């Protein structure tokens, strides 16, 4: 049976954060309900394409999936199970999906401990869930919770335009733990405006002291079309040194400067060193996990596993064809509910060359890198034959290790874009 990851997009949030350029927006309850019914219908009508697949990871992301009306998320998982074959505890795939009882018996353990069990992640925002909601998620089969807090400093949270306080985060974390979730991820962001290296490290150590199974640590990016872009523009790209006072932010306070490039790099290096001491390992450029707690779904992206995306603007890749769902909410709903038509857009079949490019630049995100053997198996050619000169150049620049597995050096990781762009043919 071929494995499949499923991504479900929930494009709703309570309020847009100032750095956020994802497909996410506030909406009235009525609209959310309408969206969910379209989503369920999409999941159902797409099922016919996935008869030969077994689902081994589900990721419900957003936006903030936890702002859905009560019961909606549970219904979503129910529908997925109804129409898709999930890998089961016994290793035996049943026609109508996995039985709840069997699943419940095993939710106490992480998916890695039992590869036969699918990893089912839901993203939540602090302050949008409570014990009751979390318990219901767990009963529905959710076994991994990803909490996007980004910071535990009130000032920073307010500046980012987030809706929650640090206390909200700690309460949500505790609730998740007490509900029985053991596989918890926390998102943290580095290089926030006005943030010193010490501020950041305090954030990190407060989060690490909770001992979550997984930590995602990203740098803040200034994306076009966000309030932050208005304030900072692309100055960010040019070494990040910006004047201290550049006007007022949305709350009438001063616009804070972004940390310098050197500070940001220091944050990166400290993250690695600090989390290593705490027992985490960095398995991807920005992701740290306790042993065996790597996010199976995300690793699938880097290893080019097949995945189906459902919902507004969701991306998919199956059989080396990539596509994206359309991203206009009204059109999405009408296409599905009224016309019963496909919502796929931007469909492109990847040629061998593109597949090789992806194999390299996605695989190199992982600490373990890429294997020549695997390249040869998939493409029938030696990696050296295709990328020999590039690898040699990057290796001589101290960016790539080419001895055994091919992987980024620590410096190569710092300038990974530069390295990855080299693998585009």
């Amino acid at each position, binding site marked *: 049976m071929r494995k499949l*990851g499923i*991504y479900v*997009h929930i494009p709703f949030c309570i309020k847009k954060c100032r750095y956020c350029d*994802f497909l996410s927006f506030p909406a009235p309850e009525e609209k959310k309900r309408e969206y969910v019914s379209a989503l369920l219908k999409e999941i159902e009508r797409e099922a016919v394409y996935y008869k030969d697949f077994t689902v081994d990871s589900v*990721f419900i*992301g957003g936006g903030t999936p936890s702002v859905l009306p009560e019961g909606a998320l549970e219904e979503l998982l129910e529908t997925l199970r109804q129409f898709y074959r999930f890998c089961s505890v016994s290793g035996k795939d049943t026609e109508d999906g996995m039985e709840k009882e069997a699943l419940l018996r095993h939710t106490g353990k992480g998916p890695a401990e039992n590869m036969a069990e699918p990893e089912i992640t839901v993203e939540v925002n602090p302050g949008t869930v409570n014990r009751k909601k979390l318990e219901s998620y767990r009963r529905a089969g959710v076994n991994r919770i990803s909490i996007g807090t980004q910071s535990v400093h009130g000032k920073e949270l307010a500046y980012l335009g987030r809706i929650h306080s640090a206390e909200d985060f700690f309460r949500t974390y505790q609730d998740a733990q007490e509900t029985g979730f053991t596989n918890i991820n926390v998102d943290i962001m580095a290089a926030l405006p006005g943030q010193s290296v010490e501020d950041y490290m305090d954030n990190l150590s407060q989060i690490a002291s909770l001992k979550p199974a997984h930590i*995602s640590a*990203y*740098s*803040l*990016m200034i994306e076009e079309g966000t309030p932050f872009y208005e304030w900072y523009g692309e100055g960010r790209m040019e*070494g990040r040194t910006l004047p201290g006072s550049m006007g007022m932010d949305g709350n009438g306070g001063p616009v804070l400067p972004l940390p310098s*490039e*050197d500070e*940001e*790099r220091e944050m*990166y290096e400290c993250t690695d060193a600090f989390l290593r001491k705490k027992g985490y390992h960095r398995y991807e*450029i*920005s992701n740290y996990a306790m042993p065996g707690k790597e996010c199976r779904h995300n690793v699938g*992206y880097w290893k080019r596993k097949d*995945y189906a*995306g459902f919902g507004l*603007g*969701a*991306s*998919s*890749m199956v059989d080396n064809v*990539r596509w*994206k769902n359309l991203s206009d909410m009204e059109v999405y709903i009408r296409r599905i509910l009224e016309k019963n038509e496909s919502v796929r857009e*931007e469909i*492109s079949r990847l040629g061998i060359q593109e597949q090789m*490019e*992806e194999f390299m*630049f*996605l695989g190199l995100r992982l600490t373990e890198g890429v294997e020549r053997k695997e390249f040869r198996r998939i493409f029938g050619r030696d990696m050296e034959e295709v990328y020999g000169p590039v690898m040699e150049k990057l290796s001589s*620049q101290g*960016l790539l290790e080419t001895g055994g597995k091919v992987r980024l050096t620590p410096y190569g*990781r*710092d*300038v*990974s*874009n*530069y390295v*990855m*762009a*080299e693998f*585009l043919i």
Partner: protein
Amino acid sequence: MSNTEQNIDQGKIRNFCIVAHIDHGKSTLADRIIEKTGLLTSREMQAQVLDNMDLERERGITIKAQTVRIIYRAKDGEEYIFNLIDTPGHVDFNYEVSRSLAACDGAILVVDAAQGIEAQTLANVYLALDHDLDVFPVINKIDLPSAQPQHVKDEIEDIIGIEAQDAPLISAKNGIGIEEVLEAIVEKIPAPKGNPDEPLQALIFDSLYDSYKGVIIFCRIKEGRVRKGTEIRMMATGAKAEVVEVGYFGPGQFIPCEELSAGMVGYITASIKNVKDTAVGDTVTDARNPCKEPLPGYKKVNSMVYCGMYPADGAKYPDLRDALEKLQLNDAALRYEPETSVALGFGFRCGFLGLLHLEIIQERLEREYNLDLVTTAPGVIYKVHKSNGDVIELTNPTNLPDPSEIEYMEEPVVNAEIMVTTEFIGPIMELCQERRGRYLGMEYIEETRALLKYELPLNEIIYDFFDALKSRSRGYASFDYDLKGYEESRLVKLDILINREEVDALSFIVHADSAYERGRKMCEKLKDEIPRHLFEIPIQAAVGGKIIARETVKAMRKDVLAKCYGGDITRKKKLLEKQKEGKKRMRQIGSVEIPQKAFMSVLKLDDK
């Protein structure tokens, strides 16, 4: 109307032009005149009929002379033929302006009621008076709140010395007072003279290449007549051809007619292949019955400013060559010859009348021919006197002989006139001093305004002098110049080294005293333009092998993409592709990749 052609009464013809400072409303007035005389309804008029090219419309300037014939029924009940010759409005095209003026018998001087007389107004009106044109003023933009028509009238009388008290008060934009202007044209501009029975003598004031008709000569018939079949000869170039068609200018079209005779303005086609044969200022005569002597004032137009132009994509070299060839068909002032640069590959050294001309050609190459160009710093023609007595006219800095072989060098110098309100005299004088200007004098035009006279080296004003002038006078200064001649000067070649390699395309000639300042600014500019590499890159400016300025591009430390949400790999790949694409568009100098725009950014080193 075309039936009346044959018996045109010379006394009913008015050949005139409009002179004005830029933005004072010349083209708008031309539009209104055309509209009022009923040739086009305002619905048919695209704003500013006479400015043909998009570029002209966008920049609000006239680049090529435009001409139109209009029929006007005057209050005396008679029909008059107006030939309106619109002249280019920029100092780069001074010679063309002077030839257009020579084709006229009179001129309308448009002065902005709020701004009054400006440097260009003066330069143009003196040019018109030099050509013995009868000039009458109109005061435009009288509906502006800041208009001071009486004050401007007095100013015109005091400064220029022409009668202005009965000048029409108009608003070309809003169509006020146009009737009065039309009547004034009839009354104040003299009818042409000239005898149709004398041998043909016609002045070429413009020409353009048309792929069907060949070269179309724009001319004013001074004496004699010309018609289909006449064998004509260009007296300066010697080119001969048989006339295929003659005609006059309708708005936006050529209207053929039987004959052009003394006093008329029109066009001639004669299967001529190249505008070089029909130089502006040349005299057309009848090859079988030539006039005794050519009309005065012909001169060969020389390029004043040179720069290298290279295709951003080396493979487009043949396209660039073809495009230049085509542009030259229509622009006798454009020069080009192939050259090679270590940094930029194959390209052309091109000569222009001035910086505006350069910019126009560059923009036309990019827009009309879809070429992506890299341009090197513009320079002037230096005269290098070698110890062995040879004199080299240097257009490319890299060809400068070894200093040991140079006796001395000369550079072109211009006489400049700058009109400025008194509060900005200080900053403008400072600017001229910085640009090695020699102060000649100052005249107070009125209490609040002065005309500054300077001698300035041409190479100091071809960069960003206009911009600097505008910014230091808050837009109030205006400027005009003409070439004075060559003078000896202490000049050096400034070289730029990137990662210790000399980049030939960035070298230029500069006065010894400015070398340090310029070198420093170039290094600063380049530092901002060159992306970080994996290693540190020194950028140095050097004169004669001696380093005079240095900057450093620090090594790249971080370049990581953020989170990849929901498996949107396509977006991530697009970013990487953009990065890769950016690299493709760079020039490799040693191990350093330099973006194309770095070569351009050093052209504008404006002071702050």
